[in-house]
């Protein structure tokens, strides 16, 4: 993009009354908006000189129509000055440090010199005057009054209220020199300018009124507030002119102050908020800027965009991981600009002449006139198409888009995909890329952004394409990787038992797009490993220990316990999830990310095909124990009951030995918790032994595809102890959790031990105890997301400006050093494991 103008800096300051009058295009004189013909009143709060929002009317200052002109400021002349509530603290600072008599600083030459020196030495520091305020003015010798501020706007001088006029006079008397020493820039922000004599009125477009269905107008909160200010201002003027008593004038003056205070900030402390007729507090200036829904965070730091789509996502394992399936309906609606040159003229014309998808929607002529391509204009557009025009055509296969799922917790929540237009109504993504988006298909929606310039397209493809993100910068390991059934598939192809006949071998290879059949290695049959090895690069050599350790019938180590790959041929092994990750990482470090993508695409398809062909499922039978093992579990539970009973007796007899640093009661609880967890673990051993290594649920747990041994235990043997805040449940009724138990019963049943398995089903009381544990974890999840979200926002805000400089130091935006050498070794965390994998 060519940038011809840049904002260099932005200066913040106060407006002087003269400046306000200079900026203003109209002095507001009428406290009203529209007249009876619903036409804006001249000198009213929606005077057309301040800009217009209704179509058809013209901005009387610049002549612009609604929507084209940002509008102009007006002003209100306040009859009596009023204090700006947000600046009262600054005024107090000046009043407390200057003398009301000489209008000079309260300090002698020596002290002033010191303050000056401090200010010079730390120009960024807030000037803090640590000296004690003298009791008498050092210049005139008079006794100094005590100045106090009652927030937000009332100043007291020796317990007597100071009028804004007095304050303004005092502040205006202080010299520029002295103001500077108080940490205020007198050139841009004289303190007396914070006592308003002249109120700036924002243009109409800042506070647009809305027309309701009934035809009534509803004014913006700000306009309402300005009407209030105008009304009181006029009443005050009338009273002054009529020579009303001082008391009445001061009351009105105070009322004007209230309206102006709430106009700036309706959430000012100690002030009742101004309300709408309906009782809703008005949303005034401060509230518009503040917080998550305020101007800064809602409209300036984050902006709404065009050329985006959003719908439900669903899986498609047949497209590549860097593709995204886009429904035709969306592809027809979205456009991509093509810059017409002499080389692509014919290509562009093809889109213009077509009246079905894919066609051109608009042509932007070199004079930047936009012409819609329709039946009527098609021929003319075709004839006049010139180099330098831009043709906006519909989305087609291969277009570059960004794909995103919220919450965008890390940079891989937005990645660059290429479009594949597909039938259907959902956006499709390869399940292998679920992990970085943290997406599943239970109704998740995702966003799609179509890139609109060549520069952005190149940048997105080079930096954000999916294959460049396979390795996560968080830990240097693969984040985009086969999961769940893919892992199972990978294991079933590569384990020793996998032997295929010719037709099966051919099918498996073909599923991955391989057309060359290697020589059979198991007599006339093919081992799954030789088929899988077709995907591996020749340079790959590694030995990985498998997580799934098996024993041979004779008790020796199963050869699959170690995965050995030599020169790209897999010699032994059963890939588990970690081993598959390492293979993928090694391929990327050896052959690059593009090769990694290809491996993922092919291996994914092969693994899915294999597991579909071999067949894999779990059933109730996987989780049933035979009679002997059931009895074993019962026995374990009986022993547990007895053990608990015995500790409780010891506790009651006070013979229980107290653990160091715990009370007797805590000791008892500790011991019981120990016993219950011991029992469940023992149950685990029984389950594992009973199920053996052929049980599908055990296989899944061991190779890291899905589930854990604990899940199997809970389904087959027992659910185990429920805990609330890491303790056994103890609340509910007095001395017991449920009325089903005896008061003070400390046994396993009464305190949330679930003896049944999920398969057998929970008893009513067990169900209740279990749902208490379940509730706690739900509550915790809710709290955790909120807390960690805020922590991440703070982390990002604190670290966002830190970048690597050309000398490899890390600096922040003020160029201060954070690190002299990034990470101490200049290594990109994304490549942290590459040395290990390539040597």
């Amino acid at each position: 993009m060519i940038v011809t103008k840049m904002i260099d800096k932005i200066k913040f300051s106060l407006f002087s009354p003269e400046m306000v009058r200079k900026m203003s295009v109209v002095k507001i004189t009428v406290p009203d908006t529209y007249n009876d013909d619903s036409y804006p009143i001249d000198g009213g709060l929606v005077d057309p000189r301040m800009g217009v929002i209704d179509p058809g009317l013209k901005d009387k200052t610049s002549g612009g129509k609604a929507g084209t002109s940002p509008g102009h400021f007006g002003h209100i002349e306040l009859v009596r000055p009023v204090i700006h509530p947000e600046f009262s603290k600054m005024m107090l600072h000046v009043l407390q440090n200057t003398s009301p008599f000489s209008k000079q600083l309260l300090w002698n030459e020596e002290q002033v010199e010191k303050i000056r020196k401090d200010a010079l030495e730390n120009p960024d520091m807030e000037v803090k005057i640590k000296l004690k305020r003298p009791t008498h003015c050092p210049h005139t010798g008079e006794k100094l009054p005590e100045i106090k501020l009652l927030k937000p706007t009332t100043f007291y001088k020796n317990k007597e209220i100071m009028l804004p006029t007095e304050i303004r006079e005092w502040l205006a008397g202080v010299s520029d020199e002295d103001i500077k020493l108080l940490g205020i820039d007198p050139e841009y922000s004289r303190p007396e300018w914070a006592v308003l004599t002249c109120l700036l009125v924002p243009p109409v477009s800042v506070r647009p009124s809305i027309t309701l269905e009934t035809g009534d107008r509803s004014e913006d909160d700000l306009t309402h507030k300005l009407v209030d200010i105008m009304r009181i201002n006029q009443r005050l003027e009338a009273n002054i002119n009529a020579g009303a008593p001082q008391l009445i004038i001061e009351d009105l003056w105070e009322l004007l102050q209230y309206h102006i205070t709430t106009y700036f900030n309706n959430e000012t402390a100690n002030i009742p908020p101004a309300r709408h007729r309906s009782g809703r507090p008005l949303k005034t200036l401060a509230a518009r800027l503040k917080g998550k829904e305020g101007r800064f965070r809602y409209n300036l730091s984050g902006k709404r965009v065009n050329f985006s789509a959003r719908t439900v996502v669903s899986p498609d394992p047949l497209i590549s991981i860097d593709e995204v399936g886009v429904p035709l309906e969306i592809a027809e609606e979205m456009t991509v600009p093509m810059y017409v040159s002499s080389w692509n003229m014919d290509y562009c014309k093809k889109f213009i002449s077509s009246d079905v998808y894919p066609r051109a929607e608009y042509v932007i002529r070199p004079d930047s006139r936009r012409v819609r391509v329709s039946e009527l204009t098609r021929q003319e557009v075709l004839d006049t198409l010139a180099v330098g025009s831009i043709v906006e055509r519909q989305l087609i296969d291969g277009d570059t888009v960004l794909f995103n799922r919220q919450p965008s917790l890390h940079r891989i929540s937005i990645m660059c995909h290429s479009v594949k237009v597909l039938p259907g109504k959902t956006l499709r993504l390869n399940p292998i890329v679920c992990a970085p988006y943290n997406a599943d298909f239970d109704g998740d929606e995702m966003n799609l952004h179509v890139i609109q310039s060549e520069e952005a397209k190149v940048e997105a493809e080079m930096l954000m394409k999916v294959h460049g993100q396979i390795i996560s910068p968080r830990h240097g390991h693969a984040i985009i990787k086969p999961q769940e059934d893919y892992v199972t598939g990978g294991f079933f192809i590569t384990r020793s038992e996998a032997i295929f006949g010719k037709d099966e071998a051919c099918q498996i290879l073909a599923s991955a797009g391989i057309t060359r059949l290697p020589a059979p290695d198991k007599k006339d049959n093919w081992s799954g490993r030789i088929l899988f090895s077709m995907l591996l690069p020749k340079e790959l050599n590694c030995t990985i220990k498998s997580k799934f350790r098996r024993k041979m019938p004779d008790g020796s180590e199963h050869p699959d316990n170690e995965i050995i790959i030599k020169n790209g041929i897999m010699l032994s092994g059963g890939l588990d999830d970690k081993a598959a990750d390492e293979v993928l990482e090694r391929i990327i470090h050896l052959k690059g990310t593009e090769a990694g993508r290809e491996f993922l695409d092919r291996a994914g398809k092969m693994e899915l095909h294999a597991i579909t062909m071999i067949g894999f499922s779990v059933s109730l039978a996987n989780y049933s124990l035979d009679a002997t093992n059931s009895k074993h579990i019962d026995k374990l539970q009986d022993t547990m009951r007895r053990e608990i009973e015995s500790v409780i007796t010891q506790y009651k007899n006070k013979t229980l030995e107290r653990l160091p640093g715990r009370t007797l009661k805590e000791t008892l609880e500790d011991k019981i918790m120990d016993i219950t967890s011991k029992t469940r673990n023992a149950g685990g051993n029984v389950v594992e032994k009973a199920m053996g290594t052929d049980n599908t649920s055990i296989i899944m747990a061991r190779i890291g595809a899905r589930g854990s041994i604990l899940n199997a235990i809970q389904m087959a043997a027992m659910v185990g102890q429920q805990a609330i805040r890491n303790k056994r449940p103890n609340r509910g009724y007095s001395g017991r959790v449920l009325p089903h138990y005896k008061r003070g019963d400390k046994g396993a049943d009464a305190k949330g031990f679930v003896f049944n398995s999920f398969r057998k089903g929970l008893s009513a009381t067990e169900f209740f105890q279990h749902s208490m544990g379940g509730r706690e974890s739900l509550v915790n999840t809710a709290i955790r997301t909120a807390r960690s979200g805020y922590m991440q926002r703070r982390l990002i805000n604190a670290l966002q400006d830190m970048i690597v400089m050309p000398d490899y130091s890390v600096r922040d935006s003020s160029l201060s050093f954070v690190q002299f050498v990034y990470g101490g070794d200049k290594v990109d965390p994304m490549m942290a494991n590459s040395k290990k994998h390539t040597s």
Partner: protein
Amino acid sequence: MANTKDRIAVGEAVGIVAAQSIGEPGTQMTMRTFHYAGVAEQVPTGLPRLIELVDARKEPKKPFMDIYLESSAANDEKKAKKVAAALECVLLEQIASVNEDFEGKSIKIQADANELGLLSVDINDVRAKVKELISPGTVECRENTITAKPKVNTLRALRRFTNKIKQLQVKGVEGVRRSIVIKDKNEFFIRTAGSNILGVKDIEGIDFKRVYTNDVKEVERVFGIEAARNALVHELDQVLTSQRLFVDIRHIMLLADAMTMDGAITSIGRHGLAGQKAGVLARAAYEETIKHLVNAATKAEEDMLIGVTENIIVGQTVPIGTGLVKLRMKL
């Protein structure tokens, strides 16, 4: 050093990547507190501990120390227990009943002979300590009863002394609430509830070089900012690895370096790093919008648009990564 292929790209937004890498796993962390065997305290781990570290609290919720013994005593459980007992801080009120005699304007300290023997506290030491506390008052000692007569006129002053005497530390290290002996893989070590590095410096039998505390601020006070930075890296890494969440050490180091770059531990939130950024707009967009705008106006501050947020707000290219590269052309 990295070879060219593995080198970090110039302009890379390493700060954002680090923040995301540490923040993103936050959602996966447990809120559980970890229960160290024996120490009757739930030491926070996971998200609460991470937030505590990043906030740079004055003191961790549950400070603790790991104290290793000199190699000669490393495998001697008895000795370890003895050292551990010597560490525990004992207050006078724990071993004695302290009562005022309002008529005689004196305080009677009735020590429990049993406890005295158990903790091997010498009553004469106690007497000396009491005397020092109430001097120029007088102290009398008969068997296990100490009568202190401070020079006071009012009963209120007397009560003040009583409270002081009750809190008198008769034994152990200040701040160490409890200590237990734990068997490591190959040696015994002492874990204490409460942390006081300088307090254990001269305790006999310990290997002071290996004393570990989880109180990062204390490390800063005692050993300085560089040590605090290392402690911070270690603690952050511990929290994440204990949850089996793997984050590259470089991200953690960047965070720790950022928190310690100005010579004192600075927190991450609005009162720390995020709140003292250069740009007015960046600060206003973060938190306390109005305050920052008002202060900027009084000082007539300028926003030089050098940060990320500021440039997003005005709609310009962000000075990070590819946005850092500029090309000037004559048009």
